[in-house]
């Protein structure tokens, strides 16, 4: 029965929806879920895209619908992408930051220096001796770096803030 599905159950189901390009982290931990509304059989999920040209958005939408239909096939699922508030990298949860490291991606730095520059620790050995190889990485939200400590290339999630 639909009435049995409370918000907590929906949140748990959304935890099973991973970023298609970083499958260790859920859309909840990425901070993409802004709103969950239920009105009878209709569930509306509001998501914030990380980057506007992200090709994974349609896949995420489809996976959200699949995950919620699994709770109750009679549910009508409405997935909306909204832009206000904008997604910013500080929306990634503590859990999300750990899951990113598991995938070999350093979590987004919390602070920028006065010139807008930033530095991150290596996600493998935590060394601070890292260099930026390319601000632009394999997906819009990632950069490519190199660790001089353990001599591994790695990626970092770009910091994105409304201060930019």
């Amino acid at each position, binding site marked *: 029965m639909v009435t049995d599905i409370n918000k907590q159950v929906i949140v748990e189901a959304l935890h099973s929806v991973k970023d298609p390009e970083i499958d260790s982290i859920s859309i909840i931990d990425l901070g993409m879920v802004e709103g969950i509304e239920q009105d009878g059989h209709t569930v509306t999920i509001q998501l914030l895209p990380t*980057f*506007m*040209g992200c090709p994974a958005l349609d896949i995420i939408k489809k996976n959200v619908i699949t995950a919620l239909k699994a709770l109750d096939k009679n549910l009508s699922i409405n997935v909306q992408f909204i832009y206000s508030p*904008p997604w910013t990298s500080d929306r990634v949860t503590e859990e999300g930051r750990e899951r990113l490291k598991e995938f070999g991606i350093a979590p987004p730095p919390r602070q920028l220096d006065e010139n807008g520059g930033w530095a991150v620790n290596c996600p493998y050995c935590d060394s601070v001796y890292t260099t930026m190889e390319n*601000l*632009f*990485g394999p997906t*819009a939200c990632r950069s490519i770096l190199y660790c001089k400590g353990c001599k591994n290339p790695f990626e970092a999630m770009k910091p*994105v803030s*409304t201060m930019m």
Partner: protein
Amino acid sequence: MGREAKEMTANNDLQFLSELLFQLADDDFIISYRGSEWLGLAPHIEEDVAFSSISQDTMGHAAMFYQLLEDIGVGKVDDLAHSRTSTERKNAVLLELVNGPGNYLRQPQYDWAFAVVRNYFYTQAKKIRVESLKTSSYQPLADVAVKVNMELYYHLLHWKTWFTQLMMAGGDARTRMEKAVQTVVADFEGMLTLGPKGKEMAELGFIDTEEVLKTRTINAMKPIFESINLDFPSTFEMKNGNGRIGQHTADLDDALSTLSEVYNINPVATW
């Protein structure tokens, strides 16, 4: 206070909003297409990754602006992007010009200096526009602008770095860059203008006036020119026409027929 689409339909303001949205959408659409033609041809592999990432973001911005047009009832996103003829397009002519002689499949002899200078000038002018749009009286546009602006920060950083480094490299690089500046300056006015409906756009609070935007753009670029020891251009022109009124070059027709080839096979298909 934010305006709603319904409120505007009544008093004819919609035509000025749609004019502005077409400029924003068409600019991003064609420059990201030109960017995509560089894929595999950029000077080194890291640049290939960066440039294609920027082009992908920019195409995402175009899609959002077309979406805002769809939301006010102008047409469907895909049709707006693919099925309009060149005379209906509102992009600046500067952005449609080919990357250089040849074709990306056959003997491309693209000009990297032109790519760097065009993208630096464009991104700086777009940044000024988007910052103004953050306080647009049309709230859905202001919301999108906040998002676009965060991504643009990285784009501008990228092109400014290439621009200053190639300029300071001296020798052949400097010569080619200065030549590219002349080419871009000859059509940059077409990017700065808001077209014949610009006055109303500003009066309705959709965006700042053309004069204010132009001054801000120049003020942002002057210190960069000083740092590379190059005289800032005294005037800008529209040598190849005013795209804001539908004047375009054959380069745009060629680009449209290529980029819409798949769409035109079956316009009602879902890809």
